[in-house]
């Protein structure tokens, strides 16, 4: 098992390189020399050249073949990699702040929003899915299915706009904008749950129903177990594997926050930061967030595999 874990941990290298290549390709190769974005619209060619030199944008993209073989890695992408590996994220070109500080300040507000959102959504969705599975093919189940499909068919923009307008602005039940206390999070979390729970219920219901038709359920019923015991003792436990996959893989994305909710409610989290960074071509921020995100993604995938062995003793990792 430890060999397996080490092998999986090593996969962090190709995955992060791949992710950084995408970001690099988008913002340097297609996007052009970032010096133009940093210098602004009315920059002189000398200023552009100066910034390019300072930040190394005048170097080749991947390999420096001019000074072969001594300084072959003195190129843009290898330099980027080496600084990221040392967790040196550089200084943001648009805010002039160290990116590591921006990340530190941004991830807490994001987590304040996404963690409650995620937990409430999960608990509510699993509970409703169990309810639907227990009463399958009755009107309760049908209502739940129709409501969840309806819920996922409405644009999340509409949820946010309607709730922000009526609940917050007209009826003054919640603050409209800002991040000054826990009460500022209630409405965004509520909207996030309402907008997301439909899809989750449908997903978990499918998983539960799949288990309901397995043979062990028939056996359990044949030996006289009640519906509730079957549901909680047998079905839920067996449904844990797909549920866990879904849950753990979603965890790394919690730290990037919610692009929409953070923007609408003025929560100074990473979601808002990355959107602004995309528009400003603020690569340092994007490289750092995707780098950390990729590492967390690999770790989460590994965690799911380990959790499998815990949930299902038949599974062995080799």
């Amino acid at each position: 098992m430890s060999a397996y874990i080490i092998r999986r941990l090593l996969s962090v290298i190709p995955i992060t390189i791949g992710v950084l290549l995408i970001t690099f390709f988008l913002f340097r190769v297609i996007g052009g020399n970032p010096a133009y974005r940093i210098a602004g619209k009315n920059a002189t060619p000398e200023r552009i050249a100066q910034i390019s030199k300072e930040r190394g944008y005048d170097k080749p993209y991947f390999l420096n073949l001019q000074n072969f073989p001594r300084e072959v890695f003195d190129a843009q992408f290898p330099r980027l990699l080496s600084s990221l590996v040392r967790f040196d994220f550089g200084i943001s070109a648009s805010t002039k702040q160290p990116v590591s500080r921006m990340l530190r300040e941004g991830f807490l507000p994001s987590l304040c929003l996404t963690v409650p959102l995620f937990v409430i959504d999960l608990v509510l969705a699993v509970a409703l899915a169990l309810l639907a599975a227990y009463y399958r093919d009755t009107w309760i189940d049908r209502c739940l299915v129709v409501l969840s499909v309806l819920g996922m068919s409405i644009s999340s923009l509409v949820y946010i706009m309607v709730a922000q307008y009526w609940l917050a602005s007209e009826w003054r039940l919640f603050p409209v904008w800002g991040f000054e206390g826990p009460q500022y999070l209630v409405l965004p979390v509520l909207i996030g749950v309402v907008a997301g729970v439909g899809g989750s219920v449908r997903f978990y219901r499918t998983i539960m129903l799949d288990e309901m038709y397995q043979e062990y359920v028939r056996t359990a019923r044949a030996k006289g177990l009640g519906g509730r015991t079957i549901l909680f003792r047998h079905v839920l436990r067996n449904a844990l594997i797909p549920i866990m996959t879904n849950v753990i893989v979603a965890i790394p994305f919690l730290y990037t926050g919610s692009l929409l909710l953070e923007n609408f409610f003025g929560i100074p989290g990473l979601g808002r930061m990355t959107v602004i960074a995309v528009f400003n071509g603020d690569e340092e921020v994007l490289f750092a967030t995707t780098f950390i995100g990729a590492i967390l993604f690999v770790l989460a995938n590994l965690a799911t595999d380990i959790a499998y062995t815990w949930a299902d003793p038949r599974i062995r990792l080799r």
Partner: protein
Amino acid sequence: MNDVIEQPGLWGNAWRQLRRQPLAMLCLAILVVYVGVWVYAEATFWSAKIRGVTPAYKISNYDQRNLSPSREHPLGTNFAGRDNLNQIVQGTRIAFEIGLLTSVIVIPLGFALGAVAGYFGRKVDTGVVYLYSVVDSVPGILLILAIAYVVRSAVDRSVAMQTVTRYVDSGLLAVCVGMGFTGWVGLCRLIRGEYFKHRDRQYVLAARSLGASHTAIMFRHIMPNVLHLIIINFSLRFPGLILTEAVLSYLGVGVRDEPSWGAMINDAKQRLWLGNWWELGGATLAMLFLVLALNIFGDALRDALDPKLRTAEAKTG
């Protein structure tokens, strides 16, 4: 002895099953109406393009801004005095164009990679799995946003693309490229799994022993057995595309010079405070009915064509 019993086949069976479900048939009827609206909108758009005139939905009328619903304008007018209902009709065109353009990228890419990975396995498979793990490890909407933003600015700068952007909005193109290069993952997984199952079946062994090439086996022999997955995947992916376009519009990279539903909802936001809810309501409902119908019909279609797919999809995400 030629009284062969006609077998209904996959599609015949599916159709028979769908016909028994009133809800699915209702959704199909709604979809047919939307397709009708789309064709009408496409016709008015192209006829104006060919004649070189400004289409009616783009003519501003500043004496009639933000009107309430009336007999003349059933859903009122917008900030430029354009009829909201007409905007929604054109929005239908944009929604379908997004669905089709994105699929032009998603289907070949997802299918080819999935087929190759599933059929050859081993190193090829490792490579493809690596590719989609990379795409998977970036938050979806962020990647779409970044691609769309960069592609749009590149298209706007490029002179060569001007002939294209005369007919297709550069924002629309960028959004489709963004959603296309992230959306192939789901289809690829599905096809890969299916090719895994098929590659050791007897008919494949028979074809191989008769000397069929790998390409022939992949595309002539196995492909007909998995084609229905493309249709199912499309009908279930389409609603997501429409919803994502709206989010992208809000974030500022959506369709620009054309009235997409997302753009309408965003514009309407600024006038909600004036009690002007019909613009938001109209676009929302237009979007809701299409997405809802696609969701329900797509589900029913999947259950009719491939009953096991529902859980397979749920488990692999």
